[in-house]
């Protein structure tokens, strides 16, 4: 097991780094969803009935 520098108990612990990571993740999700909906979905022709031949 690893050597610990300090013991952080329930009341002193504030997961601010988790909040930061989740904020970044949420931003990525929103941007990608907007891209998928407005560019890929609305911007393309029907995908089920493609033009063949």
């Amino acid at each position, binding site marked *: *097991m*690893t*050597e*610990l*520098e*300090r*013991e*952080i*108990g*329930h009341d002193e*612990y504030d*997961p*601010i*780094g*988790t909040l*930061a*990571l*989740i904020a970044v*993740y949420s931003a*990525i*999700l929103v941007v*990608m*969803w907007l891209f*998928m*909906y407005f560019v*890929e*979905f609305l911007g*393309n022709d029907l*995908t*089920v009935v*493609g033009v*063949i*031949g």
Partner: protein
Amino acid sequence: MSAYVDQFPAEARIVRAAFWSSFIALGVGGLLGLVQVLHRTDVVRFMSGADYYTVLTLHGVLLAITFTIFFLVGIFTWAITTSLDRGLENLRFTWLWYGLMSVGTVLAAIPILAGFVGSVDMSASVLFTFYAPMQAHPLFYLGLTIFVVGTWLAGADWFRTWLVWKREHPDERIPLPTFMVLTTMLFWYLSSLGVALSILLFLLPWSLGIWEQVNALLTRTLFWYFGHAVVYFWLMPAYMMWYLMLPKISGGKLFSDPLARVVFVLFLILSTPTGIHHQYLDPGIAEGFKFIVMTNTFFLLLPSLLTAFTVVASMEHGARQRGGTGYFGWLKALPWRDPIFTGMALAGLMFAAAGFSGMINAGMNINYLVHNTFWVVGHFHLTVGTAVALTFMAASYWFIPQVTGKRLWNKSVALWQVLLWFVGMTFMSNAMHRAGLLGVPRRTAEPQYAGFEFEAGLGSVAELDAQIALGGTLLFVSVVLFLANVVMTAVGDRIDDLPDNEYADTLSGADDAPLVLDNLKLWTAIAVVLVILAYTLPLLSIIDRGGVFGPGGGAFPMVAESLRLVVVAAVDAGVIG
């Protein structure tokens, strides 16, 4: 404290057996994955297009069913015995369910493998999604049934152990690992009922020629009733590892035991009444039912987002105890040189990406963009193919020494192995998603058509194919490194200084969790009610339109017909009758 093999030598044997069954499936399934990826991308084609579907079936069944479920019965056995601190009640019964699972796998594999041999009139190239009108040899359905019955008995074994423990500890909370196993098994009973009905009432008698035809949409709906929940059957053990192992390896404690319980309760309630979201494009199911299922599916994002929070917060707790600081600087304090940690953390990261593509799949309108395309294959290689598979492989580096009493053969190889999986999957899955957006279909041996070119907005189809082939090859190398490492570990010498068999302590423990969370009867009842609400009307309307046995179309291939010929020939020859 001591290692698991010293605490529970008899149970360690069963866990070892389950792991080896799982790893054999991983090796064969991984090799077939390589064959497939090279065939589809037209890099190496040495078999006919028809054989591709046999390879695809075996790849799907071995990896999605055999590899995952054998591994999870191993760690569930570990979780029950370790957290209740008692052995299983009757090891003969334990070996019985392991035996049933093994026999079932072999029986199901025989007709699939026979599909390669033209002279044997037997096949089961029905893919992992084995609904009508694709028809397999009866042995395939029989094998699957025996396998599933084995898992049901395994659940009974764990419930029994818990009930005996409960009589001796009437006032104690259910230990978290046991709680995870019990809730997971409850929804497995509920969801596998669908596939059991589908096989026993329809597919098996149909393949035996007892029914002339079956209602294809009904068997599809019953398949997906099980087919979506089964992904949580794979995923919950991976979550269990993230909750119980990751915090400890990071040097911290699990952030919240109550939150973990809430997550598993939500999966018990919500994992089954969502299956119809695989059928957004199926005619014959009204839009309104699909909308209800979409709503259920988006609710299901909640426990995964809760998990993202709890698991990351637990890792951060470890990182800060190890001296990490800052908004992002703490990430550097995590033990990235430990393959167990890195494998699981990268699996979690990939799962975050899978959450995005899953949201696209789940949306009723956007789904039309990607339905039945290579996108979906990219998606589930991030979920079951990485979040689950990579977590299991990383966890093995902890479990194999625990259940064999031997030191891990090579830690550096293990670290390279998990990194290689991550890199390989990044190439393969990303390119699959992009190809899906171009409309490249899934479940297709040779996705190129005369007079039609897929138009890539960025890059080219050849570039996507190259990435898929490269990624698939790296993944196969990673599987080989993994198997080499566990085999070399197993043949090594016993050592005495193994780490103790422990799992993560909690910052906020079970005492902080409301008692109602442990009321398994209540949550099961709610799960059953939700299933009834989500499925009664769609199923009745499917039966109302087509009848219980139709419309079905002709079976493919005609197994029943060939069986009848065999019987007629046997009667003629005087062998029987």
